[in-house]
C-alpha cells in the first residue's frame, strides 16, 4: 500500500486485536473492542436460496395438507341440525305483520317444530340458538354494561355506561343494567323424542371464569325489566347472577352479526331418523330488524363445531405451498440462473459450468 516515508504514517492498524493491546498503554479514548461494538456479533445470515425456498414451501405444504385433511374430517364428523323457525312460527294470518304479532303479548307464542335427525348423534348434543343480523357488536350495545355491578352487591349503584337502561323511572339502579342484559334472549325450547322428554342441561353453559369471578354469587337481579318497555327475558330475582347462565352467555357479546349462543346440552345419543319435537316459545323479536332465528342441534369434535372453512383453507394454503415448491423447482431447472454466479451480476462472461 502507500508505505510512504516511515515515521509519520502508521495510523489505524487494521488489526483490531493489536490495537486493543495498545489501548491499555496510552490510548485513553480508544473504543473498546468487542464483537458487539464492532457489529461483528455471530449471526445467521439467511438467504433465500432455491434449496431453502423450495424446502420451506414444501415443508409448509406437507404439514398443512394433513392438518387440512384432519380438520376437514373433524368438521365432517360433526352432525348439525339447523332449523329456522322465526318465519314458520308466525301464525298464517300474521305473516304480513310479524311485528304486530311479536309485540302483542296477548297472542300466544307457542310453536312446535319437528326435527329429523339425519345422522347418528353422539352425546353431548349442544343446543344453540342462532341469530342473524343481530349487532351485538355495536359500540353502543357492547359498552352498555357495568362489570363492577355484576360482581359486587355493594356496587349496585354503579350503573355508568348503562344508559338508557340505567335506572328505573324512579331512579333505582337496575341490576343488571345496560342494553345487553335488557335485551336478553327469551325464546325457550323443550325437546322430546317421541314421548320421551329430552332434558336440556343448562348447567355450565357459560365460561367457568365468568360464573366464578365475573358474576357475583350474592348479586341478585333487582328492578330488572320493570320499565315500560320490556326488552327480552326476565330474570328470577331470587337466583343469583352467577347462576343465571343464560344471562352470562348472552353477556359475552358476539363478535359478528351472525352468532350462536349455547342454550344447553342434551346428554342423550340420537339415532338417525329420530324425530325430535321441539316445543318452543317464540318470544324474541327479530322481526323488526329482519333477523333470523335458528335452532341448532350439533355435536362437537376436538376442533369444535361444523365448519369446513378451516379445513379447506388449510388444504388451499398447503396446496398452494406445494404448488409453489414445484413451481420454484421448475423455475430453477428451466431457467437456471446460477445465483451468486458471475453471470448473474450482469456480467456475461464464460459461464461457469456448475
Amino acid at each position, binding site marked *: 500500500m502507500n508505505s510512504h516515508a*516511515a515515521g509519520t504514517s*502508521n495510523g489505524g492498524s487494521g488489526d483490531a486485536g493489536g490495537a486493543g493491546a495498545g489501548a491499555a498503554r496510552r490510548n485513553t479514548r480508544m473504543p473498546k473492542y468487542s464483537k458487539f461494538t464492532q*457489529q461483528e456479533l455471530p449471526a445467521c445470515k439467511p438467504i433465500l436460496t432455491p434449496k431453502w425456498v423450495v424446502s420451506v414451501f414444501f415443508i*409448509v405444504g406437507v404439514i398443512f395438507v394433513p392438518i387440512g385433511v384432519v380438520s376437514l374430517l373433524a368438521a365432517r364428523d360433526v352432525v348439525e341440525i339447523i332449523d329456522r323457525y322465526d318465519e314458520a312460527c308466525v301464525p298464517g294470518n300474521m305473516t304480513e305483520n310479524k311485528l304486530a304479532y311479536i309485540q302483542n303479548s296477548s297472542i300466544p307464542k307457542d310453536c312446535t317444530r319437528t326435527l329429523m335427525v339425519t345422522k347418528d348423534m353422539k352425546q353431548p348434543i349442544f343446543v344453540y340458538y342462532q341469530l342473524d343480523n343481530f349487532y351485538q357488536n355495536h359500540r353502543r350495545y357492547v359498552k352498555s354494561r357495568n362489570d363492577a355491578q355484576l360482581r359486587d352487591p355493594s356496587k349496585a349503584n354503579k350503573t355508568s355506561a348503562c344508559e338508557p337502561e340505567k335506572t328505573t323511572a324512579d331512579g333505582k339502579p337496575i341490576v343488571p343494567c345496560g342494553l345487553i342484559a335488557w335485551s336478553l334472549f327469551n325464546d325457550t325450547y323443550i325437546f322430546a323424542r317421541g314421548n320421551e322428554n329430552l332434558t336440556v342441561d343448562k348447567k355450565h353453559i357459560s365460561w367457568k*371464569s365468568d360464573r366464578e369471578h365475573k358474576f357475583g354469587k350474592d348479586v341478585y337481579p333487582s328492578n330488572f325489566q320493570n320499565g315500560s318497555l320490556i326488552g327480552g327475558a326476565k330474570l328470577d330475582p331470587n337466583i343469583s347472577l352467577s347462576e343465571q347462565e343464560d344471562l352470562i352467555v348472552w353477556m359475552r357479546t*358476539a363478535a359478528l352479526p351472525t352468532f350462536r349462543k349455547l342454550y344447553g346440552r342434551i346428554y342423550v345419543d340420537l339415532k338417525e331418523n329420530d324425530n325430535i319435537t321441539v316445543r318452543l316459545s317464540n318470544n324474541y323479536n327479530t322481526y323488526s330488524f329482519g333477523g333470523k332465528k335458528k335452532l341448532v342441534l350439533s355435536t362437537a369434535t376436538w376442533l369444535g*363445531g361444523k365448519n369446513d372453512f378451516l379445513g379447506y383453507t388449510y388444504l388451499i394454503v398447503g396446496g398452494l405451498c406445494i404448488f409453489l415448491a414445484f413451481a420454484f423447482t421448475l423455475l430453477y431447472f428451466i431457467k437456471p440462473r446460477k445465483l451468486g454466479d458471475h453471470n448473474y451480476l450482469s456480467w456475461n462472461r464464460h459461464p461457469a459450468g456448475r
Partner: protein
Amino acid sequence: MAGGGGGDGRRRRRRKMQLSRLYSFACGRRPSVADDDPGSRIGGPGFSRVVNAGALAQQPPPEQLLPTGSNSISTTKYNVATFLPKSLFEQFRRVANVYFLISACLAYTKLAPYTSASAIAPLVIVIVATMVKEAVEDWRRNQQDTEVNNRRTKVFQDGAFQDAKWKDLRVGDIVKVEKDDFFPADLVLLSSSYEDAVCYVETMNLDGETNLKLKQSLEVTSNLQDDESFSSFGAVIRCEDPNAHLYSFVGNIEIEEQPHPLSPQQLLLRDSKLRNTEFVYGVVIFTGHDTKVMQNAMKVPSKRSNIEKKMDWIIYLLLSLLVLISFIGSIFFGIATRDDLRDGRTKRWYLRPDDTTIYFDPKKAAISAVLHFLTAMMLYGYFIPISLYISIEIVKLLQARFINQDIHMYHEETDTPAHARTSNLNEELGQVDTILTDKTGTLTCNSMEFIKCSIAGTAYGRGITAVERAMAKRKGSPLIADMDNGIERFQPEGNIAVKGFNFMDERVMNGNWVNQPHSNVIEMFFRLLAVCHTCIPEVDEESGKISYEAESPDEAAFVVAARELGFTFYQRTQTGVSLHELDPLSGKQVDRSYKILHVLEFNSARKRMSVIVKDEEGKTFLFSKGADSVMFERLSSSEGAYRQVTQQHINEYADAGLRTLVLAYRELEEDEYAYFDRKFTAAKNSVSADRDEKIEEAADLLERDLILLGATAVEDKLQKGVPECIDKLAQAGIKIWVLTGDKMETAINIGYACSLLRQGMKQITITLETADIIALEKGSDKAAITEASKDNVVRQINEGKKLINASVGETFALIIDGKSLTYALEDDAKGIFLDLAIGCGSVICCRSSPKQKALVTRLVKTGTGKVTLAIGDGANDVGMIQEADIGVGISGAEGMQAVMASDVSIAQFRFLERLLLVHGHWCYSRISSMICYFFYKNITFGVTMFLYEAHTTFSGQAFYNDWAMALYNVLFTSLPVIAMGVFDQDVSARFCLKYPMLYQEGPQNLLFRWARILGWMLYGVASAVIIFFLSAGSLQYQAFRKSGEVMDIESLGATAYTCVVWAVNAQMAITVSYFTLIQHICIWGGIALWYVFLVAYGAITPTFSTTFFMVFVDALAGAPSYWVVTLLVSAAALIPYFTYAAIKTWFFPDYHNKIQWLRHRDRGQPDSNADLEFGQALRQFSVRSTGVGVSARRDAVELVRLNTKVYHADPPQLS
C-alpha cells in the same frame, strides 16, 4: 519575580528579550478595526460597555450601568423550570404527536371507542421516553458546563491573587493566567511575564489554526510586572458591546484620566490558550455568554435528513388515508343509524334508538355521523405509528454510538475516535452524491516536510513524493519497488524520523557539503534557512534538544532542516539570533550570532519575507525567501549562472506536488542600509493613510538585485490512504470536488497524487490568468475588467460544455480558479457552470475563499438536489461544512472550529470510506427498511380493525381490547424493529468495502423510493385481509371447543391479535438479513410478551380487565382450534412476501442481494481467485460509470487484462 514558577533559562530570556522590536513591523501592519476612527464611536450605540478595572476605579459613570453578567456558561437547552414546557412544546411540534394528543383528549369524551387511559398510555410512554432522552442529553451538556465553570483561575482580590472558579469571575476583575491555561473570559491584556508585555496565544479552539499568535499590551500597562503592582492599579475600559467578530475589537482604556486606544492586539479570547509565556495579567471585559467564542457558538444550524422529510410525507399520506376511511365509515354509520328509526318504529330495538344519545341518534343521523368521524379517526389511529419517532431516535442514537465506537475509524496517533456529533443524519451518510473536500489538512497532513532543495543549480534530496509515486504507478513503472526499497536505504535503522524533515542526500548531510562544489553557496543557503524566519527556539533543559515554535509549519520545516544540516538555531534574543554553525574551514562547530536589524514580514501580497542581519564581522546582509514568481524578478540581472537550472528544478518540484520557495540574499552597503533604515522607520512611524504603502515602498527598495542561492521544496504530505480512499469513493459513484486555496499547479498535482485526476482524463481549465485579461487588468477601469472577465469565463464554460457534448466515452476534469469562480457563481452563469461541472468526473476549484467554498456547496446542493457532504479541518471550511447536507470535520488535534460546526468528525480523511460505505450504507438501509416495516405493521393492524368495523355497521367498536391495542406499538412489535434498525446488516462491512458500487443504493434512493414504501403498505393491507378473513371465517359462529362454547368478541379479537403479532414478528424474522441472538430475543420475545400479556392482563380482577378476563386461560388456551388457526393465519399472511422475496432475489435482485448471493456461494467454496476477478470486474464496471479515480491504482494492468475479457456489459441494474 512575580508569580515565580519558571525555569532559570526562561527567566534569562525574559530579561533579555524585547520582542516588540522584532515584531514591530508585523504588529504595525495589523489592519485596524474599521476604516474610520473607531475611537470616536466609543460610548455610542453598540459601543456602550464600560468596565471598571482594579481597585482604584470605583467611580462608575452614573449614566451607564455596569455590566454584571456572570462568567458561568450554560449550553443546555433546558433548565429545571423550562424543561417541562419547552420539551413538551418540542414534542408537539410534530404533526403525528399533535394528532395523538388530540385523540387522547377526545378519549375523555363519549366519542372514544376505547377507554381513555389506554389511549393516553402509549402517548405518555412515548413522550416520557423522548423527554427522558432529552433530559439525559441535556444533563450531559450540563455536566460539561459545570466542569468548565468550575475550572480554576487566579483573581486579584484583597491585594493578592487568589484561586477562584471561572464562574465567579465578574467583569472588571483582574486575572492572572499561567502558561498553558485557557483564558477564562475575554480579557484585555495588561502585561505579561515578558518585559515588553507580549504573549503567545494558541487559538485552535476558535479558528483551528495551530500556529501561535502574538498579542501585546499597551505600553502604559506593560510595567505592571508583579502581583503587588495591582493594588494600586485602576482603569476604566470603554468598549464595544458583546459581538461575534473574533478579529475586531474597539475600545479604550482610561488610566489616570488618560485614554489609550485598545485594539484586537490586546484582546485575549476565552477558550484560547496561553503558550510560551509564563503568565499574563488581564482585565475581564466580557464574561460568559458575552464572550466572543460563545457568541459565535450560539447558532448551530439543525439539519434534517431527506428520509425524515419524506417520512413526513408518508405520515401525511397516512393521515389522509385515515381521513378517507373514517369518512367512508361515517357515511355507512350514518345510513345505518338513520335506518334504526323509521316512522316511530325502531328497527334495531336492542340499541334503543328511541332513547339515545347524540352519538347514535337516528333523528340526527348526520350529526351522529360527523361525531362518528371523530371516533373513527381515533380508532384507526393505529395507522400512524405512535412510536415511530422515538424508535427512530433511539435507533439513530445507537447507530451513532456504533460510529463512535468503530475501532477502524480510530486514529491511534492522535488518540481520536470518530464522533457522530448529531445522530440526525446517520442515514444521510448513505446517500451522499457529492463530496466537497478541502485540501490542506484534509487530504494532506498539513505538516510540512523539507524534502528537496536545489542549491547553486544542483538538485539535492532523494526522497520520493506521493505524487511521484503516483506518476510511477500510473506508468506501471517497475521502479516502484526500487523506490520503495530506496526509501528504506535512506532511512538508517534506529534513526528516528524527524518531524518536518524528510530529506536524504549523503552529498550534503553530515557535513559532507563542504566537499561539494559551490560549498560557499551551500553554506549561505543553510545559514539563510537558519536565520530568515520568525521562529522561537525552545531548548529542552534536560536533553538539550531544541524544538521550535513557528507561525506556520513551513517555517518550522526550514529551521528544522537547517538544524539537521548543521546550522542549529538555538537562541533568539531581543536583537538577534544565535546559531551553532559548522565552519567549513576548521570543520568545527562554532557559535555565531547575527544581529537582526529588521524583519520584513511575509504576507500574501508580498509573497516573500526578508530579514536584515549584521554578522559578527560587521557585514550587513539581506536574506530573502519567497515565491518564485516574485523572487525571480528581483534577482540581480547580472546573475544568471544557475538561474535557468533552478527554475527548471522548481518546475519539477511543483510537478511533484511540492511547495517551493526561492532563497536569495544580498550584501548591503553601509549607506544603503542607513538610507533604508531612515525611510523605513519614518514610514512606520507615520500615521497617514498611505502608511502601509510607504512601508511597502521602503521594503521594495531593498529587496532587489538579489543573488540567487537556490530553492527549497517542502511537501505537504498526503494523509495516509487518501488515494485509496478517493478511489473507493469514486468507485462507489460519489463525485468528489476539491475546493482548495492552493494555486492551480499545486492543486492539479495533488489531484494526481490523490488519484482524483488521471492520465487520459481531459482537463478543462477555466482561468482568468490569461494574457489578455492580465493585460486588461493593468488598466484601471473596473467595470470593463469585470465585464471582460465574465464574458471570458462564460465563454470558457460554454466551450467546455461543447467539448463534453462532442465526446464519447471520455472523462473530463474541470479545474477552475477562484477569480473565475467568482463570475461562474453569479446567478446567470451558475446554471451552466453546474451543468459543466456535473459532466466532469472530477472538479477542482483552486484559490477559492471560504465564502466561495460555501457558495459552491450551496450550488451543488440546490442545483442537483442531491445530498452533499463537505469535509474540512479549518476555520475556513466552516461555511462549507454548515452549508452542506452533512458536514464532516477532521479532528486532527483537539477541539477545532470545523469539528464544532460539523455533524460528524473523523480523524483522517481515509476514515470517510468506512464512514460512508459501511456505516452510511448500513444506516440508510436500516432506517429505510425500518420505516417501511413500521408502516407495514401498523397498516396491518389498522386495516384488520377497519375490516372488523365493516361487520359492526361501522359503529366504532374496536376489534381488540383497549390495552392490547395500546401496547401494540409499545410492547409487542417495537423491539424487533428497533433491533433491526440497530443491528441489521444487509451486507457485512468487508463486502461493503469490497463492492463499493453497493453504495449507490443510497444516492439513487432505491430502498426508500415510493414504490417500495407503497409496496410495503399494500402488503400491510393484504396481510390484514388475510388475517381478518381467515381468522373470522374459521371461527365464525360454530363452537370452537369440544365443550361447545362459541367465540365472543374478546376471544375472536384476541385470536386475530395473536395472528397479527405472529405475522408481523415472523415477517420481521424473514426480512432481517443478519440474525443475531439479539434479533432472536426481540422477535420471539415480542411474541412471548403477547402471551404474557394475555395471561397477566386476563388474570387481573374483572373490574379492570372487564370482558377480557381470563379470555386466554379459560377460553383460548385450551382450544386446539385457536392454535390451529394461529398457525394457519400467520403462515398464510407470510406466503405472499416470501414468494415475492424469493422471486425478487432470484430474478430481480437488488445490488445487495447480488452480493449476498456471492457471499453465500463463496462461503461454501472459498474460490478466492474467481472472487478476485469478479471483484475486479465489478470495480472496472463502476469506474467506467463514474469516470474518476483509477489513476493511482496499481492494478491498472490487471484491469486492462480483464477489460479485454469482458465482451458484454449490461447497464447497471440499479438505475
